[in-house]
């Protein structure tokens, strides 16, 4: 199957003026300016197949949003090759723009003073959506996100979560084949995050859309993405299955057990994370898990025992803390 998104050695560098603090440095800057090159994205390559939902992860400033902006045609790459659906995004061909959407947590495409229904109608005109198709899609999305009672209220009267759901409906009315989602659940409560996640999953299932998602909420990534791409300082750190990422970077396992008689020194088995009555949770180095669980079962009166991988947040944290050189 041919890739819908194909990136090769993609880079985006910025020239940023810099100077020392103070009046003298400011005066010198009038005559001679010095610039620093910031490598926001520094030669990343990957391919994405049709219908894939891929998590695009990295700490703040890693280059995720810059990459999404290049993919959606907002930014011109400094170098490298980039193809989405066979188009060169920077040319911003109208046929290309009709097939994609970029949803950003802070995006504001709805009219603040009007009910969202009016903004939806404007989207219909912008994307030349046939009226019957528009009404069908709009009503389908409104039902999926349970927005029936909200679409007639002015957008300014909606909560952040309600507004975000409206933004997503507006961004998908033209049924794009590619979704670039940049922190779509930013600032939302857990229930609202879950609702948006299930909507994205449903959209992907119904329309076979390809999704590239950035999020700092690992629950989003775990729920939606089988594959993750991790970047840091503009460079690719990992590209593969989420399970493989956990396997590769998780140095510890979480062992939980219940004992019916108190034990004097549990630290000999691993790092004790918590003790809640007779329930103990500890972190154990991955390679010692078998030995430790065996000892626990033999030496203590264990009632039950569970072994779990480290939470994904911890795994990602450990990925970011590893220097790139050590990964190659």
């Amino acid at each position, binding site marked *: 199957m041919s890739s819908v998104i194909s990136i090769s050695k993609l880079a985006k560098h*910025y020239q940023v003026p810099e100077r020392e603090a103070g009046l003298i440095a400011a005066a010198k800057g009038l005559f001679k300016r010095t610039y620093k090159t910031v490598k926001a994205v520094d030669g990343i390559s990957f391919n994405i197949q049709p219908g894939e939902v891929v998590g695009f992860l990295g700490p703040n400033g890693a280059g995720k949003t810059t990459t999404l*902006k290049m993919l*959606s*045609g*907002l*930014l*011109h790459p400094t170098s490298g090759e980039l193809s989405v659906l066979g188009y060169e995004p920077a040319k*911003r061909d*109208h*046929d290309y*723009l*009709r097939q*994609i*959407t*970029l949803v*950003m947590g*802070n*995006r*504001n*495409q709805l*009219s603040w*003073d*009007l009910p969202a229904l*009016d*903004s939806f*109608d*404007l989207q*219909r*005109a*912008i*994307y*030349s959506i046939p009226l019957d198709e528009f009404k069908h899609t709009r009503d389908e999305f409104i039902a999926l996100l349970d927005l029936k009672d909200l679409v007639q209220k*002015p957008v300014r009267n909606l909560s952040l979560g309600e507004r975000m759901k409206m933004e997503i409906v507006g961004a998908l009315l033209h049924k794009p084949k590619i979704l670039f989602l940049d922190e779509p659940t930013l600032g939302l409560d857990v229930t609202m995050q879950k609702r948006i996640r299930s909507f994205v999953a449903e959209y992907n299932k119904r329309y076979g859309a390809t999704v590239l998602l950035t999020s700092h909420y690992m629950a989003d990534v775990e729920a939606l993405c089988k594959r993750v791409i991790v970047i840091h300082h503009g460079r690719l750190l990992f590209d593969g299955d989420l399970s493989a990422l956990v396997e590769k970077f998780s140095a510890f396992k979480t062992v939980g057990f219940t004992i019916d008689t108190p034990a004097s020194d549990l630290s000999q088995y691993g790092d004790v994370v918590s003790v809640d009555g007779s329930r103990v949770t500890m972190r154990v180095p991955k390679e010692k898990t078998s030995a430790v669980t065996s000892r626990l079962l033999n030496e203590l009166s264990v009632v039950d025992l569970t072994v779990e991988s480290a939470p994904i947040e911890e795994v990602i944290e450990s990925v970011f803390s590893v220097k790139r050189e050590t990964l190659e």
Partner: protein
Amino acid sequence: MKRYFDYYISMMRVSVMEQWQYPVANYFYMIGMLAEPVIYMVVWSAVANQEGGSVGGYTPGSLAAYYIVWTLVRQMNIAFTPYGWEWRIRQGRLSTSLLRPMHPLHEDVAFFAGWKVVMIILWIPLAILLSLIFKPDLHPTLLEGAVFFIAIWMAYLIRTITLSLLGMVTFWTTRVSALFELYFAAELILSGRLVPLSLMPEAVQTAAWFFPFRWAFGYPIEVLVGSMSVSDLLLGLGMQFAWVFFGSVIVSQIWKIAIGRFSAVGG
């Protein structure tokens, strides 16, 4: 073409609905804008009276007509400002527009065209009030009325184009304000906004021919108030079309260069 027509109608409808949300605020805004022409009108009427009843061919009645039509033309040539360009880049609004399969300038033109529909409706009672107070001497012919109708929309397009060119400077520097002040000063003198151009020195009148300001302001007023020959009416329309055509070409070329520099700050 049908697609653009549908878009313009939809965007104008959204704009009209938005403006009707705040009719009182819009009215106060419009009343605030009346101060400028009323001051000019009072001053020049006083000068005309002192000069024995007219100044440069303008009587107090024709000056009243000039400045009352002025208020409509001023509303008509309000367009998206360079300050607006700075704002929309900072807020990430330009990114939203760039993601649409439609040039962002269509959004500006359509939105402000809808805005004008509301402002013209609000303007009518104010124009009646000003007419009752200042008694304008205004007797346009059918032809002048028709040319005026075209001329005010062309004036709007010319000002949209020139302000967009200024706004695009934002892609190179965020300090557009200084440039806009310079533009505003030139516009005040060369457009007929401060005073009818025929009252200006000969050199200023000649210079005004070669800048867009007159065609975006003074010319539509002169069409309705003055007694222009048919050839002068058509020549003025020709100049407006030329400015719209060449201005659009320049905007499109500069846009291509400017957008390559866009760094999508703010979203």
